[in-house]
């Protein structure tokens, strides 16, 4: 076998881009016993009671996400290499918490929550990443984008979402979304999905957050193992399972 000289040395990538709300409200306790301290704080435009104990949405996300990455690392997948990028949005900006790379090369660092919810900025970062062929080549499988938020974005998210959904490459991504909380704020996550056949996953405790990441893990590994890479698009341009 002598073809090494003319072939790619890296597997075909399957990019997974995860957008995570790290605004102050993600520090809300969602599970476990708590003790009120009697103090309050204004964060993410609301007043919050400061408590001891319990598990916050952010802690639960850190735990579930790192577990998902470990599961990806353990999967032996024929035909693709899962690559992950994590984009967080909290405070004034969206930032790349983990740049797009093979999951085996990711060393997990916990995220922290604070400030407002600049979701539009996260859409902007995600769109630019999806449009950048030097980062996600046309050899890659159709990417997945996962959005996790407790809603109430404070910036021009609608305009940035429109740009994301109209972008020739970005609009093709397979989108999944989880709403954290028991409010009715998931309507905007439904707009992100832009697909009536899909629903927003709702989580109001740590177990449900974990369950969502199990769903994402299964969805991504199943796509990578190519039983049905894209069954939701029946346009003139067909999507192939290899």
């Amino acid at each position, binding site marked *: 076998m002598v073809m090494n000289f003319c072939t790619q040395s890296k597997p075909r990538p399957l990019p997974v881009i995860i957008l995570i709300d790290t605004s102050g409200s993600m520090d809300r306790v969602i599970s476990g016993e708590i003790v009120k301290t009697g103090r309050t704080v204004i964060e993410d435009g609301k007043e919050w009671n400061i408590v001891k104990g319990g598990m916050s949405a952010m802690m639960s996300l850190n735990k579930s996400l790192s577990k998902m990455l470990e599961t990806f690392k353990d999967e032996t997948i*024929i035909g693709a290499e899962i690559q992950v990028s994590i984009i967080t949005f909290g405070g004034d900006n969206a930032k790349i918490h983990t740049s797009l790379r093979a999951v085996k090369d990711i060393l997990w660092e916990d995220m922290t929550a604070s400030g407002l919810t600049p979701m539009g900025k996260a859409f902007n970062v995600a769109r630019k990443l999806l449009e950048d062929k030097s980062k996600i080549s046309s050899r890659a499988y159709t990417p997945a984008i996962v959005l996790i938020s407790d809603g109430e974005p404070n910036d021009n998210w609608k305009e940035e979402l429109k740009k994301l959904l109209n972008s020739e490459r970005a609009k093709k991504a397979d989108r999944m979304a989880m709403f954290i909380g028991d409010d009715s704020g998931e309507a905007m996550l439904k707009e992100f999905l832009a697909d009536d056949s899909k629903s927003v996953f709702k989580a109001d405790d740590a177990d449900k957050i974990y369950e969502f990441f199990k769903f994402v893990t299964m969805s991504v590994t199943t796509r990578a193992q190519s039983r049905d890479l894209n069954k939701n698009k029946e346009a003139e341009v067909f999507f192939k399972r290899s």
Partner: protein
Amino acid sequence: MSSKFIMYGYSSKGEMHKKNNLPNQDAWFSYKYFFGSLVVVADGMGSKKFSEFGSKMACKASYDAVNYWYKNKSSNVRHLLMILQTMWTSLVSVKYSDKESCSTILFALALNNGKLITAQLGDGIILVNRGKYASNLSKEREGFGNETYALGSTWNIDKWIINEFDITDDIKGIILATDGVADDLLKDKYLEFSEYILNISDEFPQKRWRILKDELENWPTPFSGDDKTIGVLKFI
């Protein structure tokens, strides 16, 4: 101008289909008519139920369509493609729905009158080796690796990539490959790749087959799961 050709090729079932106990959904075919030579490769779209049948019928439809087209004295390649699409639809519809049998198709037809025609619907690659360089006659992908046009997905002839040119002495050969091969090739190594594949023609047919089989079944790109097919038209 050379009018003598050697044709060879090989199709290898990918790891994914081996693991899932599914058939190879690629196919290839070559045929020497009294008026020219034809090589075809086709890649059945795995998301479709009967794509294995679709790719085989793409080869059969190419053979029939070229025959019919030549006998009716047409020289318009668009006519040939329309006949091919119609014949493919008729062939697959006998057993299944065309929407469930989608297949990409790439072919090269070298005519004894010195004309060379290549056509492609969907992904994969057609390389022309001209001695000092190799030209890629296919288009760069716009979207992602699992999107393609195919027979059964479109009737629009404009979606085909068509090339017609004279067979000149500098043309050493044409290589057709499905995306399982094409997507893993380094763009700056097309010449070296095509030279290597064309040089196999110096071997006896059995050895040619063995070399291609070994190369495709032991493909160096890690975790490469696709079916892989190469078809070659070598000018001698």
